[in-house]
């Protein structure tokens, strides 16, 4: 069993912002079943600011915990601010992750950025 910090275990046991948003302003899914981790992020955006975010996760404890922490970090941020958040910020906030699990934090950030891109693309031409 890999060693996780207390904070990672806490986010695994009690994930923040878990679930779906009905009629989200944007959503994105990244990862694949074959890889063993996959995540969907739902965004509610007002005046270029993330006012609500929720996620669903198919993945390991690190996947769930990094997604949970990511939602906590970016909720309330403007899209520009949110785009600047990196996987390292998430790992740091969690008090570290086993190196073999760094890709999980990447997935959380990638899914968020994909959702923001989807939102920005949806605005084009409006």
């Amino acid at each position, binding site marked *: *069993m*890999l060693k*996780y910090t207390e904070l990672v*275990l806490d986010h*695994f*046991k009690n*994930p923040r912002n*878990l*679930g779906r948003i009905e009629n989200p302003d944007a959503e994105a*899914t990244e990862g694949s*079943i*074959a*890889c*063993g*981790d*996959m*995540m*969907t992020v739902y965004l509610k955006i007002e005046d270029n600011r993330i006012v609500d975010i929720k996620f*669903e*996760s*198919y*993945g*390991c*404890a*690190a*996947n*769930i915990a990094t997604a949970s922490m990511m939602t906590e970090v970016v909720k309330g941020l403007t899209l520009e601010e949110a785009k600047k958040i990196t996987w390292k910020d998430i790992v740091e906030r969690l008090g570290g992750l086993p190196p*073999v*699990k760094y890709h999980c934090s990447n997935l959380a950030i990638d899914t968020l950025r994909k959702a923001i891109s989807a939102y920005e693309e949806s605005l084009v031409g409006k």
Partner: protein
Amino acid sequence: MKVFLDNCRTTRVLPEVVGEVEKYMLEKFARPDGLYESAQEIYDELTEARKFFAKTINANSDEEIIFTSGATEANNLALIGVARANKKRGNHIVVSALEHGSVMSIVDALKKEGFEVTVVPVDHEGMLRLEEFEKALRPTTILVSVIAVGHFVGSIMPLKQIGEILSRQDHKIYFHTDAAEMYAKMPLDVQDLKLDLVSVSGHKFHGPKGVGFLYVRKGTKIEPIMYGAESFDKRRPGGENVPAIMGMKKAAELAFEQMEESYRRLRELQDYFIGRIESEIEHVVLNGPRGEKRTPYNVNFSFSFIEGEAISLGLSLEGVEVATGSACASESLEPNYAILAIGGDHERAHGSIRFTFSRFTTKEELDYTVEKLKKVVQWLRNISPLKAER
């Protein structure tokens, strides 16, 4: 409640075994190679221990038992020792797709010495494909290694048929099995199965860690893989781990006393456990065979739409300790090869959980496990973007 269901990885050492280990540390601490009385006593007791182990597998002579530091060393000695000693006759080795990681690593190392290795596939139940096995044999084949019981999916390999196929060949092919999951759990007769080499590990049946033995049939050409001063057995030099060997003997005595009774009791518990999971949790797949082809010590399920590392950690937080075949739980991030070998896809490997019993596993423990499993599986499925209906 604490429930340990990873007994295929290791087992709890019994108090009787600890007592025996302590005796050979505090009182009878001599080595077998001195010329005084206490050393002679240990020499005789180690010889008795070899006789005991030889008898448990119906070997002809106590000299056919070599004590090792466990099954990994026994596998190394068997495969490397036989391969090197017989390379003038041929350079081809055949193994099954379900071999333990130690055998897989050893044959990889032997490839670098010029040996060729064929990995014979297994069917969807994890049974060796005998036709393909027979076709894999060549005039240059010198050694076959097939695990006795698949340690991940629990399939009892057709060792008897393999032994018969090998005895029909017109040249000698040595037959090795890693019996870590078979020894002291079900009968193992080296004459009946026509085995030349058998690896056994003490800590799989409530003995100490770091001890095991290799059975080597008399007449087998084998080289040592370790060199040093001769003590008790020149094929494996260095001071014998006498306390662990005597502890393993005690553990084996206790295990053999209850072997048939445990087999029968665990078979009932296994049926009960499988039945409860299949009727109370949706979208599950049993990995490996059912009934007599499966060891009663193993149950392995894949849970759809969720991932095994999260399941096992969730269970661990509830006090239930199990193993998973998920890539996320391994340092290599590779999905479990045994699930892929029986035809499962990556999702099935990632969602697989192995529950392995000991002869002390109780119905109460399994009931507790099912309750916690239902809770963890339902919770993870609620948070998964993958759903049955979508």
